[in-house]
């Protein structure tokens, strides 16, 4: 890569660059003004120059209002520009390809919907919105792709998302930009943008025996979730309900939950997104579904972050929103 240029390889990169160049232009103008005036005054009004200066301005408030006003207007314009772009780039489009990313000291693990896994690399198709759903197994990391002009912190205990649409094929730097301990500077790799056919080929070449959803379904049984929660129209909860009425193992059925509002026992209503499902597995006592008792043990420290992603993918599939 060239030493003095940075590729602009995502849809938002040229927009960020435009903002940066506007800032740079403004900076150069103001610097020219400040340095220009300073140099002019110190040469013009040097004490060895005994020319009469005339009277200095006694009333200064007109100048004060002028430059305070000008500064405020300029700054407000910059604020609106930067915020507008940030807001537009905040929400991923609903049809984005979702890839899960886990940061840990000192590597990045990514898992594609089809179960393809990679370490310190991320293969994505060109021209398609990609949303990364990210969490950390230990400390705070940050997933940064300078060529896309994006980065976001990756925190333990919660999901953060980052999305982009790559516009150029090629390999680009991936850095961890939040200091994360000894080998922070080695925690990186490459984002490889492939053409759509190449990406399809890459997926096929690296196909896992089963996709995320299928793996999640297996885990759903293995961790004993299916003992209480009804899923895909069957399960213990369903059976118990019908034979014994309200029994001790009654738990909310999970079909069609994802993406829909869930009324909670304390009166709140939350939308069941990835974070909600993750939290419900790890901290079941926090959000109790209305008309249910909290009987569920915490799975914190039992289910790994990668298995959590698989379980979430499975529960999500129960709403028919994403196949494997």
């Amino acid at each position: 890569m060239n030493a003095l240029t940075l590729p602009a390889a995502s849809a938002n990169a040229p927009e960020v660059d435009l903002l940066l160049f506007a800032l740079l232009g403004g900076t150069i103008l103001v610097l020219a003004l400040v340095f220009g005036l300073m140099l002019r005054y110190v040469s013009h009004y040097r004490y060895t120059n005994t020319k009469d200066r005339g009277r200095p301005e006694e009333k200064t408030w007109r100048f004060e209002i002028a430059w305070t006003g000008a500064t405020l207007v300029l700054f407000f314009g910059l604020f609106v520009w930067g915020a507008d772009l940030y807001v537009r780039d905040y929400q991923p489009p609903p049809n984005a390809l979702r890839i899960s990313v886990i940061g840990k000291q000192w590597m990045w693990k990514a898992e594609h919907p089809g179960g393809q896994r990679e370490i310190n690399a991320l293969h994505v198709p060109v021209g398609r919105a990609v949303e990364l759903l990210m969490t950390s197994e230990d400390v705070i990391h940050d997933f940064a792709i300078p060529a896309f002009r994006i980065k976001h912190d990756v925190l333990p205990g919660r999901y953060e998302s980052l999305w982009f649409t790559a516009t150029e094929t090629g390999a680009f730097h991936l850095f961890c930009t939040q200091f994360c301990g000894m080998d922070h500077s080695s925690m990186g790799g490459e984002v490889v943008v492939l053409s759509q056919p190449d990406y399809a080929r890459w997926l096929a070449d690296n196909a896992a025996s089963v996709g995320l959803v299928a793996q999640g379904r297996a885990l759903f049984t293995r961790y004993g979730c299916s003992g209480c929660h009804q899923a895909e129209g069957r399960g213990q909860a369903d059976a118990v309900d019908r034979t014994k009425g309200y029994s001790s193992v009654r738990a909310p059925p999970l079909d069609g939950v994802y993406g829909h509002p869930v009324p909670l026992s304390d009166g709140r209503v939350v939308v069941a997104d990835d974070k909600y499902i993750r939290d419900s597995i790890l901290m079941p006592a926090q959000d109790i579904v209305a008309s249910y008792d909290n009987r569920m043990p915490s799975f914190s420290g039992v289910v790994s972050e990668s298995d959590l992603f698989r379980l979430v993918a499975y529960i999500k599939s129960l709403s028919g929103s994403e196949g494997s």
Partner: protein
Amino acid sequence: MSDVEALPRSYVTEDGTLSSWLLTTDHKRIALLYFASITAFFFLGGGAAALMRLHLISPGGAIVSHATYNRLFTMHGVVMVWFFLVPAVPVTLGNFFVPLVLGARDLAFPKLNLLSWYLFMAGGLIVLWSLFWGGLDTGWTFYTPLSSNYTGGYVVLAVVGIFLSGFSSIATGVNFIVTIHRLRAPGLTWYRLPVFIWSLYSTSIIYVLGTPVLAITLMLLAFERLFGVGVFDSTLGGDPLLFQHMFWFYSHPAVYIMILPGFGVISEIIPAFSRKKLFGYRFVVWSSVAIAVISFFVWGHHMFVAGQSLYSAIVFSLLSYLVAVPSAIKVFNWLGTLHKGWIRFDAPMLYALGFIGLFTIGGLTGLFVAALAADVHLTQTYFVVAHFHYIMVGGMVTAFFAGLHYWWPKITGRMYPEMWGRMGAAVIFLGFNLTFFPQFLLGYLGMTRRYASYAPEFQVLNVLSSAGSVILAAGYLMPLGYLTWSLFRGERAPDNPWGATGLEWKTRSPPPKENFVTIPIVTDAPYNYPRPAAQHG
């Protein structure tokens, strides 16, 4: 040494015993104790920086391991922030000159002043212990959960040291606030106070209001680390972002703790060497106060990519632009002061002009990182490193040197060699720009900060930056050399070598122990320089 004996009776010659220095309650002697301490810390932190720059001449890292590099930048940050920048101007120039400028015989609480130095030294030595014995590799920001549960090293010890030194800040702040309220000379009304005093007043407010929050934050961190109390660690039910909110609630105002006194120094020097009233005195004064207030509401701009909500990010961005306005007002007023002045280029003025240039660059690049979408790309890269070094080093350290040269004759009774002073200012300006300007480009290109090794395409700019740091280091060693030399061999200073206004120039150089033989009476606004124009028709 016969020269020293020939000095007139002053606070220096009063009593020569070691205990008279270590147990002194004279604000001037305490200022000198602080001078010696922060100079040592400055060169210690600078040494760590020099090693880092040397290491970074090669992409793979030239001299130390990753672990050592992490310890070096942690040491650099901790020492420079808490043991140089935060105290620097207030405890040295402020301690020495607040009573002199106010026409007082000492600060309001002389014993508290001495206690603050002991707290500072105790904190400093404990931190050095943690840095050299256990090693500390969290960065000066101590982000959780890295600092609470994932790193070895003496985090708790370092935190205790910073906690103690925080109390020294609070003591200094309280002392200044009370002194400025209660001990002004007769006739010295609020609007007759030099801007230096207003700046230190604003700084003191932040000291007193902000530092306790840092103390609480660091104690919670220590509790989590020692006893597993879950405050910040998500596996214990805490929230890692809470730490960042609390940390920056202090640490952003702390940025203004560092720079506000610098503004004050510059506002003294520019009028003195332009022979002209400060342009827009009241605007400069109230912009200091405005900065102190608004600075408490911008902390979230350190967290635009950290996972705070969209709406907080927007509000913090707007407020960050707002806090930049008073700083811009000050720059324009300094330029207005130069206009139609009678400008002299003595060393303090050269440092002050350098300050205006470097601070303006630092301030303008702050607008880049206050713009949300631009910050997403630039934050946590060398762009940010360059930006805050332009403010903290280009701005604050340059202002400190400006003030040091300006008041050196009063403090020591000696003149430094003028040519050396001017050369020092020029070399520092040049070396500084060569060191830090390439880092703006590195940041834009994506080079992450706190990296012990980096991608090969970044090497050219890194080497350039390292080369600049050699010049900068030489620049900083120059004042150490010629100022020390002047202590023994410098020309005897007159009482008012610059012909400056201000009560500190109305007493002897160096001042007697009681500052003034008779307390002066003030009848005039500050900076009332006679117009030389009158002499020339």
